[in-house]
C-alpha cells in the first residue's frame, strides 16, 4: 500500500494530501506522522489539503487525532488550503475540527506555526534549537 510522503522542512513536517484517501491510508498517515514527529522532534506539522475535494467525518477525526497526538509530543498542527466547498459542507455536517488551527495557504500556515511557537526561521542566531 502506498503511503503519503512526509517532508521535513526545518523544524516542521509538511504533508500534502493529493489523493482521495481511503481509510487505511488515512490511518497509516496518522501513524507515520506520529512516528516522524517523535524521531525528528519536530515542533510543527503542516497539512496541505488544497487538493482535497471531500472531507467527511472520518477524515475530520483524523485531523483532530493528528493534532491531539502532535500536541502530546509538543508540536502544533496547522491545516491549510481548505476549499470553500469543503468548508461549507463541514459546517453543514456540524463538524468542527477541535485543536486544529487553519490557514489559507502553506505560506500563512508556516507563519502561523512560527509565531505560535516563537520558533525563529532557520539561520537565526538567537540560539533556540
Amino acid at each position, binding site marked *: 500500500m502506498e503511503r503519503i510522503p512526509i517532508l521535513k522542512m526545518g523544524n516542521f513536517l509538511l504533508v500534502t494530501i493529493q489523493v*482521495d*484517501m*481511503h*481509510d*487505511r491510508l488515512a490511518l497509516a498517515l496518522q501513524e507515520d506522522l506520529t512516528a516522524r514527529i517523535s524521531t525528528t522532534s519536530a515542533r510543527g506539522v503542516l497539512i496541505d489539503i488544497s487538493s482535497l*475535494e*471531500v*472531507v*467527511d*467525518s*472520518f477524515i*475530520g*477525526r483524523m485531523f483532530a487525532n493528528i493534532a491531539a497526538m502532535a500536541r502530546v509530543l509538543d508540536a502544533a498542527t496547522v491545516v491549510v488550503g481548505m476549499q*470553500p*466547498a*469543503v468548508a*461549507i*459542507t463541514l459546517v*453543514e*455536517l*456540524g*463538524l468542527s475540527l477541535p485543536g486544529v488551527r487553519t490557514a489559507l495557504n502553506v505560506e500563512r500556515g508556516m507563519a502561523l506555526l512560527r509565531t505560535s511557537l516563537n520558533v525563529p526561521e532557520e539561520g537565526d542566531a538567537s540560539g533556540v534549537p
Partner: protein
Amino acid sequence: MPAESHDTLNIRSSADVVSVRQAARALAERVGFSLVDQTKLVTAASELARNTIDYGGGGSVRLELVENGVRRGVRLTFEDQGPGIPDLALALKDGYTSGNGLGLGLGGARRLVNDFTIESSPGAGTRIMIARWK
C-alpha cells in the same frame, strides 16, 4: 420516477468507499450540480458508505440518475443485512454515538441532501435512501 441510468456497487472495504465517492461525483457532475452541491452529495455518500461497513457488516449501494417532471437529480440507496438500528429517532439526533468517535453521522448526512429516508430494525438490516435535486 423513471431512472435514466444506474449502477450498483459493493461496499466491503475502505477502497470501496472511495469508489462510491467517485461514482457519486461522476453522477453529480453529469446532472450539472454546482461544486458545493456535488461536494455535499459526495460527502453524504462517503458517510453512509462507511456506516454500511462499520455498522452493517458490509453491503451495497445503488446509484441512480432520476427525473421528477423536468427536475433532474441523483439518488443513492444504501443497503445492508446488518444488525439494524434499534432506535431510529435517537440515531438521527445530532451528536448521537453508539461507538467511539462522532457517531453514525446520520443527522449530518441528512442535512447535506434534499431527500432522506431510512428503514431499519433489529434483525432486518438497514436501507437508507438519499437524493439531491438540481
